[in-house]
Structure formats: C-alpha cells, structure tokens
C-alpha cells in the first residue's frame, strides 16, 4: 500500500550557515563559543505545512536557498527541526527514525557514495544494511546496474566515476531496498539531456509501481513534465500549491511581457494597465522608481505594437522587450517578484 508524507508547521533555524545540501557539517563550533560571537540565526523553514498523497509524484520548486533541501533533510531524519512535525505514513520522522528509514529512499543533491567500495559493493552493502538476504540482494543489484547502464563498471571503485555515473548509482542505491517513498534532491542537476530522460523514465516507472516520489528542483521544465502536484517555496514558505496546469492557470492572463525603458514617465504603468487584454502591471523588481514593467496579459506578441506606440506617446523610450508564455517561471515571478534563477 502506498505511503503518504505529511509535514505540519515545520520550522528550522540554523545557528550558522545551513550546510550545503542541508545535510549537515559540524555546527558544534558556534555553540561551543557561546557568547563570544553573535550567532547568525538563519531561518531555513518558516512554518511549512504540506500533505503529499500516497502514490503521488510531488515537486518542491524554488530557487536555491528556498528551503527545499532542508525540508527533505527533515523528512529523511538528517535535519532536526526547530519545531513542527513530520510523518512518513503513520510514523513520526523524529520519534520512529529506524522505521521511517525503512520506508524511504534518498537521492542526495551531491553524490555521497562510499568511496571505499566498488559500484556493485555499494548496492550490495546498502541492501545488507536493510536486512535483505544474500541471494535477493545480488539479483537486485545486477538488475539495477543493468537498468542504470552501469554493468560494465560494476566492479570498479567509484572514485573515478563521472558525475552522471555517480548520480545514476545514487539513484540505483536509493531503490535497492524498494522504498515506499523516494526522495530526490535536485536529481537532474548536472546530468546530460540523455541521462535526464532516462532518469525521468525511471521516476515515472517507479511511480507506476505505486510508490510516492518527492523531488526538489529549480528546473521548471522538470517540475512541469514530472510532477502531479507542486509546492512552490521561497524563503521557507509555501507560496503556491497545486497541479502544474492549475498553477499556470492562476497566473493573471498567462502571458508575461517584461519591458525595460531608457526612461519612464510617471503615469506609464497606469496607461499600460488600460490596454485591452492586460490583467496586471507591476513595476519591475518591485521598486516604484524602476525603469521597467512586468505586464501580465492574456496575449503576448499582439500586444507589442500597442505598447510601443503607448510608450512613444508618453515619451518613454522602450529599450528591451521579452515575451514569455504561461509557465511556472512566470508564476514564481508573479508571486515573488524575482526570477527563479536569480
């Protein structure tokens, strides 16, 4: 039976900079020094609540530092939350760690393979940690090596593997014990397009076997292609939640026309707002004196001549125009005023 994931009012404040990939290096030093140095309190999660349904492919989308990896860290027992609760199925993540670890498989943001072992040994020992018997773990390791196209390198130490090979092996390892919930933290970062497609296929296939998948990404295309539902997070908050289609439909108009002007006249934004088809106009970067405007509208290219003549009439010089179609990128921009890649 498929297993869901639930988090409630999750907060995490790091007392030193959050470790890369939020999976921790020593933060003991900051504590030991006590009052000598003022501690920098960095809130990574600021009261996140989410429910991921059993058998769903769920995406956490957001820019770097939004709190995606910390959320995954808490759900995978690797980060201790400052407050709030998290469950995998019926099991509290913090109270029933060993039980929870049985149910989950984790693909980290950076490969953390055991460099003292060969590729095949990594899979075999991983299965042994999970109590899988000798015969079964050998068969499963061979099958996964084959599936991830690693059979030829199976008996080599992984130190010399390329980034893509390490990533494939990390995913194979996470699947070794057939977990009910698979966590993938930025799974396609650094992968070539071919491997990315292989990865997507494998994720879909895993999902079809009735498993729950939670992935984090800052790649819109990936979120759009794979996820049934998405949470867009920024600064430790969920700012939007829904299906990719539903989220995109929630952008006013759908199209985004980003305009830049050499100079700007005071009433330009109001005049842009009055053009037919325009739903919302915002000063670029949220500043009133900025020389740009983000225009949300239900049409794109056909709006340009009108904008150009309007700008010319009001004495503003148009210096740059960018039209984007309805996308999650626009959605993020709409909610935060920032681009995902900023």
């Amino acid at each position: 039976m498929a297993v869901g994931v639930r988090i409630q009012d999750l907060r995490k404040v790091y007392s030193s900079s959050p470790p890369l990939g939020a999976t921790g290096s020593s933060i003991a030093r900051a504590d030991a020094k006590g009052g000598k140095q003022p501690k920098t309190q960095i809130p990574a999660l600021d009261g996140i609540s989410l429910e991921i349904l059993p058998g769903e492919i769920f995406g956490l989308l957001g820019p770097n530092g939004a709190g995606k990896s910390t959320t995954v860290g808490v759900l995978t027992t690797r980060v201790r939350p400052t407050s709030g609760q998290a469950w995998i199925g019926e099991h509290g993540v913090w109270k029933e760690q060993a039980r929870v670890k049985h149910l989950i498989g984790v693909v980290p943001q950076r490969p953390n393979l055991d460099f003292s072992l060969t590729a095949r040994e990594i899979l075999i020992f991983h299965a042994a940690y999970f109590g899988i018997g000798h015969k079964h773990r050998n068969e499963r390791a061979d099958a996964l090596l084959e599936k991830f196209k690693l059979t030829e390198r199976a008996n080599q130490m992984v130190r010399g593997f390329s980034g893509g090979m390490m990533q494939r092996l990390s995913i194979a390892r996470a699947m070794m014990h057939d977990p009910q919930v698979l966590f993938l933290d930025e799974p396609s970062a650094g992968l070539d397009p071919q491997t990315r497609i292989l990865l997507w296929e494998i994720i879909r296939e895993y999902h079809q076997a009735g498993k729950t998948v939670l992935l984090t990404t800052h790649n819109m295309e990936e979120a759009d292609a794979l996820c049934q539902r998405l949470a867009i997070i920024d600064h430790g908050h969920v700012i939007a939640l829904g299906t990719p289609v539903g989220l995109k439909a929630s952008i006013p108009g759908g199209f985004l026309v980003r305009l830049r002007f050499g100079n700007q006249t005071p009433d330009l934004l109001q005049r842009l707002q009055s053009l037919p088809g325009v739903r919302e106009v915002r000063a670029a970067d949220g500043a009133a004196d900025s020389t740009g405007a983000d225009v949300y509208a239900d049409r794109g290219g056909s709006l340009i001549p009108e904008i150009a003549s309007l700008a010319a009439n009001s004495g503003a010089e148009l210096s740059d125009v960018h039209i984007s179609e309805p996308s999650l990128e626009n959605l993020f921009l709409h909610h935060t005023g920032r681009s995902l890649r900023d």
Partner: protein
Amino acid sequence: MNWKTFGAMLARDAHVARRNAIQLLLQTFLQPLLFVFIFGRVMVGSGYMPAAYKSLLLPGIIAISMVFTGIWAVAMPLIAEFQWTREIEDRLLAPIGVGWIAIEKVIAGMLQALVAGLIVIPLAWLVLRPGVEISIHAPVTFAVIIGLVATFSACGGLALGCSINQQHIGLMFGMVITPMIFFGCAYYPWSALKTFPILQKAVLINPLVYASEGLRATLVPRFSHLPIAAVLTVLLFFDVLLLVVGLRQFEKKAVS
C-alpha cells in the same frame, strides 16, 4: 536495535580493512618495529642500554601499537566520511539509531586494536630475541586490560574523529598523538620519572600511561609499575568518558 544492520556495517568495515590490509599493516607496525630494532637491538647490543630494557620495552610497544591503531582506525575514516563527500550518509540512512552507527565504528576499531596488539607481540619478540623474558602471569587481568585499552583507543578515535576537520589532521598528530606517545610511559616505566616530580604527576592525565603500565604489570611484573587496581579504574574511567564525548560529538556531526 537492528542486529542485521549492525552486522552489515561491521562486515562493510571488515571488507574495507581487508582491502587496505597491507597499507594498514605498514602504517601500524613499521614505526614501533623500527623503534624496537633501534632501542632493543642496536642500543642494547652495543651496550648503551642494559639487556633488561628489552623486556621493559615490549609491553610499551604493544600499548602504543594498540592505541595508535584504535585511534587511527576510527578517527581517520570518520574524518574523511564526514567531509564534503558525506560518504557516511548511506549508513546514517540505514534503519538503525544514529548512536549505533558510532558504536559500530568503536567495535570495529576495538577489533583492529586487538589484532594489532596480538600481531605486534610475536613480531617484536622476533626482532628482540634472545633475551626477552615475558610471560602472562594473570591471563584474566591481561585480557581485561587489553580489552580496556582497545576500548579507550577506539572511543578516543571516535571523539577525535568527530571533533576535528580534515585540515587539522596534522595538528592532531603533532599536538595530541605525538605528546601522548612520548609521555605515555611506553619507552620507560612511570617510576623512571621520579626525578621529574611535576612531570610525573602531569603525565597521569595521559591514558596511554595506564595502558603501558598495565601491560607491564601483567607481562613483566618484576619491573616497578602502577598498582593494577588503579590502572583498571582509570582505564575504565577513560573508556566511559571518551565514549560519552564521542557519541555526543558524533550525533552533533550526524544531524544538523
């Protein structure tokens, strides 16, 4: 507690130790054996040292080999695996409490320290002979002492390995391991320090002193040594202290 997971992690460590066996043997035994050769053979043979020094030296060499091996076997892999590669993560995600992973490392280190102690005895004996007179007078006491020594070295490795970063390994050897070896009463009995009364008191904070003196008390009791009861008590104290500190440091490193 999940015994299958625990066993599999021990098997992994044994597998890696077997793979690195030659390197491990060289780094563990080369230095003590050279020391044994120079001081036990060359210096004694040329008359600069009395012949009895051979028998006095051997327990100290066993203690150094065990302590060094235990610390090294636990600390070095932990330092590497907690660095940015985060290799230890696959074990942190294994279905077992995080503290047990540290305990497993300690057990693996203890076993390696015991093996080191058992190997260095015949090796040193071969280098030193003839003229070494050692015998195990109290086998139970001897077993308890080497057990306690193995435990404190592995727990010390855990505490050190979880407290320092890769860039400080050199410092660890310079500031911790080297003074510990030289002030560990391995190359001389504790009573030889009586002409340096302050130093004689100061070295008592060094757990290696109790390891050397304890082994001396059980293998060559005719030389003066610290009372066995004191040795056992202090070694046990260090075992518990270093285990508690080590576990705390491990959990701090493991969970952010």
